[in-house]
């Protein structure tokens, strides 16, 4: 009779796949040589939200994205994207994911429409499906009248919109964007943001990395701030700011800013930081500072609520990362 101790141990049941979680990263690790670029990073993105990944240069954002897409193999941890294990089933997962890279990599030899057709073919989409989808994609990108035009006639903003449309050719569940509005003028940026909001309202999920705090603040449902490969903070933008930064900020400029800060600012602020010749005064109540500034000469100031940039700089520091 088989002894209880000799029975094979039961395999640990895998947690039931959560249809609500579109991307789950657990304890992700990646080494480049002896350098640990990602150190035990964990986060989960729920369906329908826009998740922002913020971090300075070298924090490991792009490496994390590439691991999630299955382009590079992690050295530890697990990734599950649209219900598939990555990198084991990476190509199957990428069938339902769209990617907008940091640098445009459109095909300059093809017209706008041909770019969409050729890309659709990589997903195994047949010509009939593509023909049905492309007009809507062109309209989404605001390029309905430019379908037959070459890329040389397109501005930077139009190319970025085309790249976004191209990322939607397979009607993905998850859209991954790496710094999508870098290098665009304000009008172009707003157009992209409107497009992304439209996609969110259609139920798509977005993972976004960005350096632009206004972008993160406008779009992100939740944020993760990473630095040196680890998660430093993760929550909604409002909650993060409330938890880490004083609610009011006064930026003081001018020739006498430093002198004023030393003489008056420090005493009246919860926290004061000098950057070059600018003083950042953080306070729970800015009124005493405003009163003092009213009497000051040789300075200008800007009074505003705390924003994500303050959070970012507080969490990751002011030093340049090369």
């Amino acid at each position, binding site marked *: 009779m088989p002894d209880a101790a000799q029975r094979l141990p039961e395999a640990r049941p895998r947690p039931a796949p959560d249809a609500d979680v579109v991307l789950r990263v657990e304890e992700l690790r990646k080494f480049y040589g002896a350098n640990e670029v990602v150190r035990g990073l964990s986060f989960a993105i729920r369906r329908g939200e826009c998740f922002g990944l913020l971090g300075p240069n070298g924090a490991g954002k792009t490496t994390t994205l590439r691991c999630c897409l299955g382009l590079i193999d992690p050295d530890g941890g697990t990734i599950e994207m649209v219900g598939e294990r990555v990198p084991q089933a990476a190509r199957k997962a990428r069938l339902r994911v769209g990617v907008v890279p940091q640098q445009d990599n459109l095909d300059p030899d*093809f017209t706008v429409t041909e770019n969409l057709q050729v*890309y659709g073919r990589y997903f195994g989409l047949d010509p009939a499906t593509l023909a049905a989808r492309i007009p809507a994609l062109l309209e989404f990108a605001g390029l309905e009248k430019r379908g037959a035009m070459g890329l040389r006639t397109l501005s930077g903003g139009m190319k970025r919109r085309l790249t976004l449309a191209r990322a939607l050719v397979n009607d993905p569940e998850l859209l991954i964007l790496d710094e999508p509005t870098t290098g665009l003028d304000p009008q172009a940026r707003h157009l992209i943001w409107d497009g992304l909001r439209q996609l969110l309202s259609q139920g798509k999920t977005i993972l976004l990395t960005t350096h632009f705090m206004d972008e993160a603040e406008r779009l992100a449902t939740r944020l993760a701030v990473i630095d040196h490969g680890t998660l430093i903070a993760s929550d909604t933008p409002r909650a993060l700011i409330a938890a880490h930064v004083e609610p009011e900020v006064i930026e003081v400029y001018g020739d006498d800013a430093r002198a004023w800060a030393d003489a008056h600012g420090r005493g009246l602020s919860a926290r004061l930081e000098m950057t070059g010749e600018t003083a950042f005064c953080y306070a729970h109540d800015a009124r005493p500072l405003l009163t003092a500034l009213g009497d000051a000469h040789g300075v200008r100031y800007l009074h505003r609520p705390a924003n994500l940039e303050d959070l970012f700089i507080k969490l990751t520091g002011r030093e340049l990362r090369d």
Partner: protein
Amino acid sequence: MMPSNLLRAPELSLSWTAVWRRNQLVWRKLAFASLLGNVADPLLYMVALGFGIGAFVPEVGGMTYIAFLGTGMVCQTAMFTASFEAMYSAFSRMHVQRTWDAIINAPVSLDDVVFAEWIWAASKAVMSTAAVLTVIVGLGYGHSWLALWIIPLGFLVGLTFGAFGLVMTAVAPSYDFFTYFFTLVLTPGLLLSGVFFPVAQMPVALQAVANLLPLKHAIDLARPLLMGSVPPDILLHLAVLAGYAGAAFCVALVLTRRRLLR
């Protein structure tokens, strides 16, 4: 990157056909100019040297000099076309346009992309081979059914030099790097493989070197075929070409993975 990942076996799927098709669609837009470029060079050689040198050279290798040159040119065009495509064109796509980066964001693996580029280089080689062969037939040579075997031979030569070209592309920092390939591989190949004169004319030491060159083995197959006879040592020549092609493709794949998948 972990060594085991770099050296794993190629993971191929039918997705490579979508990448091949993309290259073919671009080619169609420029087809005439492209063919003209690939074919003009060998034709000029044949006409200029064939009539020029052929005027005072009686017979070479049992045939007129223009026929001798033609058989060499048919292989030379496959070699140059595939090399160019796998170097300059592939490098443009990989590094300048970042097309490969775009493709591997879709469910296509890098292995599929490199494989597709390899087959595409050979496809272009076979097109230029067929074009040069047509001219040779027009000049009155190769009127035997055996000559048609030169077309698949062109594909095989394209695979060999396409693979060499992809190795270069995988490590090239810029277009200038490809000059090394001309100086160290293409030109010696052209001069020592029996294109312009029989290999038997060379010193024994150089003949030994020639036996290592894939182009020589291609010509050893092409010349008899064009003249209407079955080449000797078929399997040996095919094995050399296929061996170089397969080995170089694997090297190209490993080097490309190291370059792009970091």
